[in-house]
């Protein structure tokens, strides 16, 4: 059974009087524990697709199924719960809060209401250890390198034990070396049966994934 199904996803944007087709009839399925890379030239619709999969945006037509539940039928509250508990988002710009230290940034999602999962300190230590930032716990973001900041962001996305991770160009702000390390970490997550969908421009990194979805002008090629 597929964890995530995209069915005939189409997304139109209105830019002035011009209609932009960002996604055109995109369909695919993702199984639990898969590592998927989405690539394609700039403007091909990668970010748009990722946002729709992560329930941040709605398609113009088509449907996303998460655990066989159609997203369009979900209430606002259910969508909040999906974002909080099932999905972990990692962004190109990390988005760490500057006045919080590493551990506080990682625990930020636990603050938000309606959290039935209990997360133990040991689990958080385990993630930090796994990501190699355990000795950075009390540091502020401005005391960290880019690679370390992205690892903190990944730790934050993992803290609620999500079923899948969505990452939009997580390595774009990092050098080759650090970018590769991040991908190696993502692979290790997949080994722990977490599904990872990552958008990247970098072909070499995309080739490390089990499956590649290549977009061009909103269509899978």
């Amino acid at each position, binding site marked *: 059974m597929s964890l995530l199904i995209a069915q005939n996803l189409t997304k139109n944007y209105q830019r002035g009087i011009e209609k932009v087709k960002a996604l055109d009839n995109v369909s695919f399925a993702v199984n639990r524990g898969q590592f998927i890379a989405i690539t394609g030239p700039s403007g091909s619709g990668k970010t748009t697709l990722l946002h729709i999969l992560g329930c941040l945006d709605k398609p113009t037509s088509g449907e996303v199924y998460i655990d066989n539940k159609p997203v369009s039928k979900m209430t606002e509250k259910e969508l909040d719960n999906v974002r909080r*508990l099932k999905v972990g988002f990692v962004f190109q710009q990390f*988005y760490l809060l500057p006045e*919080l230290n590493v551990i506080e940034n990682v625990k930020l999602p636990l603050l938000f209401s309606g959290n039935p999962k209990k997360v133990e300190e040991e689990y958080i230590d385990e993630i930090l250890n796994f990501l190699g930032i355990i000795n950075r716990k009390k540091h502020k973001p401005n005391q960290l390198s880019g690679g370390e900041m992205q690892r903190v962001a990944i730790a934050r996305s993992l803290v609620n034990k999500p079923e899948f991770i969505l990452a939009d160009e997580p390595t774009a702000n990092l050098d080759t070396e650090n970018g590769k390390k991040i991908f190696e970490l993502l692979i290790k997550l997949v080994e722990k049966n977490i599904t990872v969908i990552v958008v990247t421009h970098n072909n070499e990194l995309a080739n490390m994934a089990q499956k590649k979805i290549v977009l061009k002008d909103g269509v899978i090629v």
Partner: protein
Amino acid sequence: MTFRELALKSLYRHKIRNFLSLLGILSSVAVLYAILSFNKSFTNNLNDELNKTGVHFMVVSAGCPHEVASLVLHGAVIPKFLQPEIKNKLEEKLEGKYDILSPMLVFQIPNIQKQRIDLIYGLEMDNIKHLKPWWKISGKIPQNNNEVLLGYEIADHDKIKIGDKYRIKDEKDYIVTGIIEKTSSKDDAFIYVPLSEAQLISGQKNGITAVGVKLKKSEALNETIDILSREIPGIQIVTINQILTSISTLASGARVLSLSVVAIAILISTIGILNVILMTVFERTQELGMMRAIGASKTDIFRIIIEESIILTTTGGFLGIVFALLLSKVIEKFIKSFMPYVPQGDLVVFDPLLGFFCFIFAILLGIIAGFYPAFRATKISPIQAIKG
């Protein structure tokens, strides 16, 4: 971590800006507390003062404006004199059913040497302990016509000590036998002189401006007033209750004015808070959008923002109350400067109930100021915010 800790840390990002808006709330709550405390004590102290006065009513000349008549006990200068025979008529009609019958003569007279006007309060010195029982007098009450009692301000201003001389009307020196300790009321500004001497100074032989009366039985008050008004023409009777009401009415104008000033100050400082909170919402669009993307509900976002606003106003409110108490003397002096009459005693004082009220009010201001920014924050769409 809690929402409060998160809000505190975010506030810390713009320390100076937030501190300045906090100062706005601080000062308006300080003034609010001071004025409310003043008003409350004003009524209480006035009640107290008049209750302690052993007089049931004052008799003044008919046609004298009611408000001015009310102030007679507190030294209003009335241009109209009572007929000299009024005192005898009162004694006659009251048939000995009184404890006190105290004629008084209040007038002003130029003091050329000191370039000012002296306020003279003439009364029978034995009556002082009935009329002003709360006075603390150092020295003695005058016994002879060449002796005077000074209000605190006069003595303090001229650096006069007991035993010194005080010259009235630039012709006669009087021995100061006593000085009244500070009452913080108009009493501080008078020179108290035996009635007959006051009549001599004023040039009004047998002149009196008012008579204070205390009956033996207070139940007979209304009946007695009826009889006196009917049988003695040319007089007007003001009871202590009427005095209380008149003074309160006089003060209420100043009260309304001061409260409207506070209302405007509060409005402005609340808009100040609204403004800085709204600014942080705009500045943190991406950050708040990110929080939405990682699972914050709209309610969570609303709480984070409103919490910041409430922290600012409650901190400002709390410090404002502390500030009002620390500066109570200065504030009191300022408010007194535009009040027509002020009873004795401290007026801006610690009052737990009032403090609690002001604190709750500050929380309310926080909710009001934070509501719109928080509402705006819930409208931030995660996609616009984090578009990579």
